[in-house]
């Protein structure tokens, strides 16, 4: 279970990119699920700045529909409080569909109860807002392995 700050991966990341004999790093894809347009824009820009190809969904039902249409992602960043389907309901639905990519809960509450409910639903990681470049970098490293 991962919670909290990213550590110091950014220097390692730069050295990998500078070396010509390193394997080609794959382009990572992400889905951002949040009902707040400001949050979607910030998270989208953060992920794009780190080389992700990213898509957005404004609620859990949209996220489920995106996966049902056949889309796949390396990672999903999901909010808790959303209309129609909240983050926990969405996570459960995605796991029941067989979606096995990494799911990161990004919420503004961060209570123990919420974290436990998210873990039970099948989330892999948990962050309290705001999502930052420093918080995303460890995921880039993990997903590139």
């Amino acid at each position, binding site marked *: 279970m991962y919670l909290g700050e990213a550590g110091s991966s950014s220097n390692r990341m730069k050295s990998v990119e500078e070396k010509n004999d390193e394997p080609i790093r794959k382009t990572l894809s992400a889905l951002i699920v949040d009902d*707040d*347009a*400001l*949050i979607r*824009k*910030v998270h989208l*820009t*953060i992920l794009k*700045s780190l080389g992700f190809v990213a898509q957005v969904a404004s609620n859990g039902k949209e996220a489920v529909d995106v996966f049902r249409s056949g889309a796949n992602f390396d990672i999903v960043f999901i*909010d808790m*409080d959303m209309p129609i389907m909240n983050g926990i309901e969405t996570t459960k639905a995605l796991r029941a569909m067989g979606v096995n990519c990494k799911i990161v809960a990004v*919420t*503004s*509450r961060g209570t123990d109860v919420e974290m436990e409910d998210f873990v039970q639903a099948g989330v892999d990681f948990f962050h309290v*807002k*705001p*999502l*930052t*470049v420093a918080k995303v970098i460890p995921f880039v490293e993990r997903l590139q392995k």
Partner: protein
Amino acid sequence: MDRNHLKHQVLNMRRSLFDQLEELKDDANPNFVEEIVTLFYTDSARLIQNIEQALVNKPIDFVRLDDMLHQFKGSSSSIGAKKVKEACTQFGEYISAENAEGCTRALQLIKQEYAVLRRKLETYFQVYRWRDNLDKLRLHICSDLHKEPSGLAICEN
């Protein structure tokens, strides 16, 4: 206001407000910060109005109030508005205690901090635009003078 003082003031305002958001700005997205701030203003006006209305309704729906508050807290934290976020945290404590009077006082604090933030942001963007225009003017003037290989060496002194 001399140039160095202005530069220092802009740097301090940036560092205290949106270091990371500013770093996300690029040629493809030059107005990113202003766009984010505009979204924040729209969200905040709506949420503050809804919270005020929720506090007037009897009985107070503290669950709904909590949802609105956390939305506001989330967007505040995402643009680095620490004091607004802290005021939201205080408000959240009154909601948990179902303390209507405390909620009303806490909302006033949120509105005060939000008003201060707006003033700071407006000043920041005014200074930023002024500095940006000044830099463009300098570049324009330098291009009319005979140039060093670096292009700007004369103007830097």
